[in-house]
């Protein structure tokens, strides 16, 4: 069955609440700041927002429901998307359907998380039942350990070198240099990357994202409505999501995009070669490589060769994670799953945090999340365009 298209769906007002390494505020504060940012950016009132999509790891004991009272909102559509790194695209897909069907005219999608000094450990130890039962007791390495397994496998099976991963990380750091919001802006070269402190072999420090506090948000409405309000917007050409794809792969070599990518490109009416940039989910570089292959930027198994042949900074032939990605911005919990999406919007709206990709008209965004046990379960991707 073919998915209905996303005609007439527009994204408005990319908002990032500047990240901080640690925060004494709760997630509620960060989410409220993001909502305030959306209203300020668009001149809309709180009452104009009819729907709300929320993603957060640190909102407990609340869910999106509690937030309505916190934020003083009366809504006719509400969603809570606990999908971490995939939540940006998944929230977008759901909000798009709400707008298309008339369930809500304007939906605010917000992800926000705080980071107290002990938040990360607590999130890890109770992340999922499988994690608490069958992963956390094993050295409590968190996602570093899980991605070390996957990285080790990729290096042995597909001949990927540390230098290949390093090239991606170094390019992203270069992208972050002019981004005042990036928490990590110290110049990084390949030697720094290769010689960094060991974290979980073969992963070293600059393979890993730094947990922080922050929030990201955007609005979804019809293009008609955006135009009527005089708001600049970008268009959604196509979007997919997939959960627990390929469970029989003994080690995760595919994140899930492969199952739906043909549909994504067909629905979008463009292909990988038409993309002016790619905002990949970059919790670890091996996952970036997985997305490059599965979304069809290169044939599967040829990611390493692709990396060697291309340049990934904002001024290269394959601009990747143009604000520096999470590896330079920090990973603000579930907001990490929104970062690529709002950065794609900014590039297309010509309002970058840092450097602008010249003449960008089309971009791809990808999300990946939830290491439930030995692998990430949620994958999602979207294609956006400047109208």
């Amino acid at each position, binding site marked *: 069955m073919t998915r209905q298209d996303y005609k007439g769906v527009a994204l408005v007002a990319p908002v990032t609440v500047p990240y901080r390494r640690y925060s004494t505020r709760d997630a509620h504060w960060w989410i409220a700041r993001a909502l305030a940012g959306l209203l300020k950016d668009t001149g809309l009132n709180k009452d104009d927002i009819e729907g709300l999509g929320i993603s957060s790891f640190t909102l407990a004991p609340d869910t999106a429901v509690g937030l309505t009272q916190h934020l003083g909102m009366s809504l006719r559509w509400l969603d809570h998307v606990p999908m971490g790194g995939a939540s940006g695209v998944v929230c977008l897909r759901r909000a798009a359907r709400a707008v298309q069907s008339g369930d809500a005219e304007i939906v605010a999608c917000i992800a926000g998380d705080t980071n107290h000094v002990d938040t990360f450990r607590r999130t890890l130890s109770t992340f999922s039942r499988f994690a608490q039962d*069958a992963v956390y007791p*094993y*050295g*409590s*390495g968190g996602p*570093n350990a899980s991605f070390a397994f996957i990285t*080790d496998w990729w290096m042995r099976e597909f001949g990927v070198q540390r230098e290949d991963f390093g090239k991606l990380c170094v390019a992203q750091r270069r992208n972050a240099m002019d981004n005042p919001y990036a928490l990590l802006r110290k110049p990084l070269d390949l030697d720094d990357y290769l010689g960094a402190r060991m974290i979980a*072999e*073969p992963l070293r420090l600059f393979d890993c994202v730094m947990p922080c506090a922050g929030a990201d948000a955007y609005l979804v409405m019809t293009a008609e409505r955006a135009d009527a309000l005089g708001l600049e917007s970008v268009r959604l050409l196509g979007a997919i999501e997939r959960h627990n794809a390929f469970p029989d792969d003994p080690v995760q070599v595919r994140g899930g995009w492969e199952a739906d990518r043909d549909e994504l490109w067909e629905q979008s009416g463009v292909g990988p070669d038409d993309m002016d940039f790619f905002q990949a989910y970059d919790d670890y570089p091996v996952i970036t490589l997985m997305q490059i292959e599965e979304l069809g930027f290169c044939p599967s198994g040829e990611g390493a060769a692709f990396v060697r042949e291309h340049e990934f900074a904002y001024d290269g032939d394959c601009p990747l994670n143009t604000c520096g990605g999470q590896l330079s911005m920090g990973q603000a919990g579930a907001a990490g799953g929104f970062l690529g999406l709002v950065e794609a919007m900014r590039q297309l709206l010509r309002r970058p945090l840092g450097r602008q990709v010249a003449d960008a008209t089309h971009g791809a965004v990808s999300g990946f999340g939830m290491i439930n046990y*030995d692998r990430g379960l949620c994958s999602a991707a979207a294609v956006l365009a400047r109208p």
Partner: protein
Amino acid sequence: MPRSRAALGLTAQAAEGRFALQRCEECGQVQYPPVDSCRACLSGELLWTPMSGRGELLTHTKLHHSNDPFYRERLPWRLGLLRLEEGPVVVAHLHQECPPPPAPVRVTAKLDKAGRGVLVALPTGDTRDMSTDPRNGEFSCDPRFRKVLVTDGKSRVGQALVHELAEAGAAVIWVGQAEPWKKYDGQEAVGKLPQVTVVPLDLTDERGVMRIGAEIGARVDILINNAEVHRTEGIATRAGAELARREMEVNYLGLLRLAQAFGPAMRSRAADGGASAAAWVNVLSVYALSNYPPHGTYSASKAAALSLSQCLRAEMQDSGIRVMNVFPGPVDEEWNQPMPPPKLAPERLARDIVLGLRDGVEDLYPGDVAREWVERWRDNPKVLERELALEAQ
């Protein structure tokens, strides 16, 4: 740290030294991590089933960073992702001598310091005691290089324990003796061992127990409480409560006194590197599970001790001290003389206790009688009660 009820099933198996996973009774699929319904056919009927222990190491890592203070002190820490012959892919602690992947490994289930059942991958071949890996200590309570207190060194079981511990490389063995002025058979052999120091210890003497606790409690790594009073009485065989009281004084209240005198110091030393405080062993009886009427009051005192040792285990859990309960069937000693064989030789019981410490198990049923008994008890405790009543007639 929270754990699901299903995952505690793995702990319960590991507590007795078994590596078992849930297997679907309808379609046969083996499940991991533990679940509530079969991943393949959604059946709710899952049975803990022993695994072959054969697996293939797929990928590995060595952690140089941990989010947990316990592991932070023990880095680097090796982990593997492996596929079991029965199908599931599991995360496991990886012995340092396992070759890099791809490689065959042997998988076992152990209790970790926090008492959680965890999977451990070993190289194929004989590495039963894992002693070639310094991190062995996290899963085992090996008496080697450790200082051990045996609370009753006079009994045949106590003497056998002392010899077995010396053989196993214990550094110091304190041997408790109530009424130390009384000579007994075997005294000379025990006294000759260079590791042995005799200490006066009468579990009915509260102040005496506290005094010895204050003296050596901060040095004891493993405490083996084998002191007991054993009389072969039911209810109707005797008038009055005097003998039963003597059993309770030693078997139940004696354990309580010991736990109060030695528990706090041992708890505080559980995380010391190297030869840390590691284990507390209670020699109970399989009669603790269900009353054996010819030894009725003794059974009751051992049942009380079992209940108290569960309390002790819960209180010790956070510290990392393993509380091991030993449930022998009839032991070949004085008070079991009228019992027909098979009876457990004291030497065999001592050997099994030392092996149990090495394997880091929590519940030990040494000998055929104990194993048969516990099997019957598990199958149906009520039926066992009736069987024992008939035996007593």
